[in-house]
């Protein structure tokens, strides 16, 4: 199923990526071509097949519920593009 330009704009919004007009054009044709190839999966009958979300047979990997040191605040903030005290600072969120 070919991907439309509207699809590309919708997906870009979901992914929070601002695309240029040129990128929207290129991606529309590239995604269509790649997804066209991916549609060969429909040749396979997977009725009754369990999906593999995890190749290892691990479940419920827990640790003891005890307090251990975590990343110090200063370390966590050391790459911050903008900070205010112990907080990351960002442009306004709500109007």
């Amino acid at each position: 199923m070919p991907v439309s330009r509207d699809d590309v704009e919708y997906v870009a919004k979901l992914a929070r990526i601002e695309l240029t007009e040129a990128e929207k054009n290129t991606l529309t044709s590239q995604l269509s071509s790649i997804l066209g190839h991916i549609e060969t999966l429909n040749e396979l009958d997977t009725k009754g097949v369990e999906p593999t979300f995890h190749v290892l047979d691990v479940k419920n990997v827990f640790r003891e519920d005890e307090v251990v040191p975590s990343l110090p605040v200063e370390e966590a903030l050391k790459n911050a593009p903008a900070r205010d005290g112990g907080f990351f600072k960002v442009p306004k969120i709500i109007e």
Partner: protein
Amino acid sequence: MVRTGKSETREPSALTAHELRGLMQSGKMTCTEVVRAVFERIDRFDQQIKAYLYLFRETALEGAAHVDEKIKRGDELGAFEGIPVALKDNLCTREGETTCASRMLKGFRAPYDATVVERLANAGAIFIGKTNLDEFAMGSSTENSAFQVTANPWDLTRVPGGSSGGSAAAVAADETIVALGSDTGGSIRQPAALCGIAGLKPTYGRVSRYGLVAFASSLDQIGPMTKDVEDLALMMTVISGKDPRDSTSAEVPVPDYASVLDRDLKGMKLGVPREYFGEGIDAEVRESVERAIDRMRECGAEIVQVSLPNTKYGIPVYYIVANAEASANLARYDGVRYGYRAPDASDTISMYEKTKRSGFGAEVKRRIMLGTYALSSGYYDAYYLKAQKVRTLFRRDFENAFAVCDALIVPTSPTPAFRIGEKTDDPLKMYLSDVYTISANLAGVPALAMPCGYSREGLPIGLQVIAKPFGELTVLRVASAYERHRGFSLRKPPLNGTKAN
């Protein structure tokens, strides 16, 4: 130059970790000499090869001096004491930057070392620097790095492969003794094959991913890239094992991987899947791998024809699963807490959108878009869920094959190294070159790439040895036996700035 007791004198940077360990311990060479020799190679060749993004020159020399003191005092030495290691730049290090070859993380200083880095450090390793990769490990040529294109040391007009192209080129050019790479769809094995070195993707969960910048969490693994099989085994013993900080790491004991290196192939059954030798494979690659299989037969292995019927569906499955997982993993790069932030955004949503517009390269954006589409409402069942079901069929194919053989022998890349720029116009063409490597990631099985010959143009060709989950001993045993009986001499790249001749 140092006399190693063999008939030729050899440059320290050209040696392996196991050779150097003996020479340093017996006082025939100092660690400082070795590290200096490695930096001399880098100073001489890396302007052309561009394997490194960042060098740890001072700390490496300090570390070497420290090792030399330990040796002089007769202290107990670590398993990897004094061995120079290069690290792919998607592995977090407190030292230097961790950029993933992306503008998004230029300047990022990781607040912790990856578990594999800690384990090697505790074993005495000396870190030389961070190597180039395709941005966020997305690519098969290292052309997607935001900063530089790494050249193949065998022919500087060709790619080293990817995404661990920097690590592969550094090992091949003796700009390090060993390196670490990561492999999600072939990113250790394909560059290893294209650069004529050895590389191992462990079983999923064998090596902790803590500190590896995530691309596709159900596929990613860190692994060694070295000049020979023994060094792969030595590195695996150091880096493997359960890590409480990676809940996907396996509770499986780590054997002494070097213990199988002197065993032979007698009585072993090696499977050759017909689907890997059909259309699309370069004639020279096929001949080279088939010659290697003949050698293995001569060494006493029984060769068994097998089938992995779903092989051709590997690319579509991989490009849905990997990209879907990537779209989730890369959502965090939003300009809020670290990395690049687009200036002058009026609100947070616009900050996210502009940050991702400028911070990510084209291939990364393409994959995030593909992954987001596949996971979006209305498409999840048709794409992601379907792909994960086909993944189960893949695992069954491997289980069926391993019921009749101990290991599979297959090619790594359909062609030797291609030219820089040759495949960049057509992303699908680039993706299709991953066909022989992705299955091992989808099934979670261990896979080792190693040299099996050279093309008529002098370019390396590599084969893969694949075994069942946690079958690293089998893979290393087969690889080591073949290495001892390969029937041709291993070459070094003709580094003088011109094409391989």
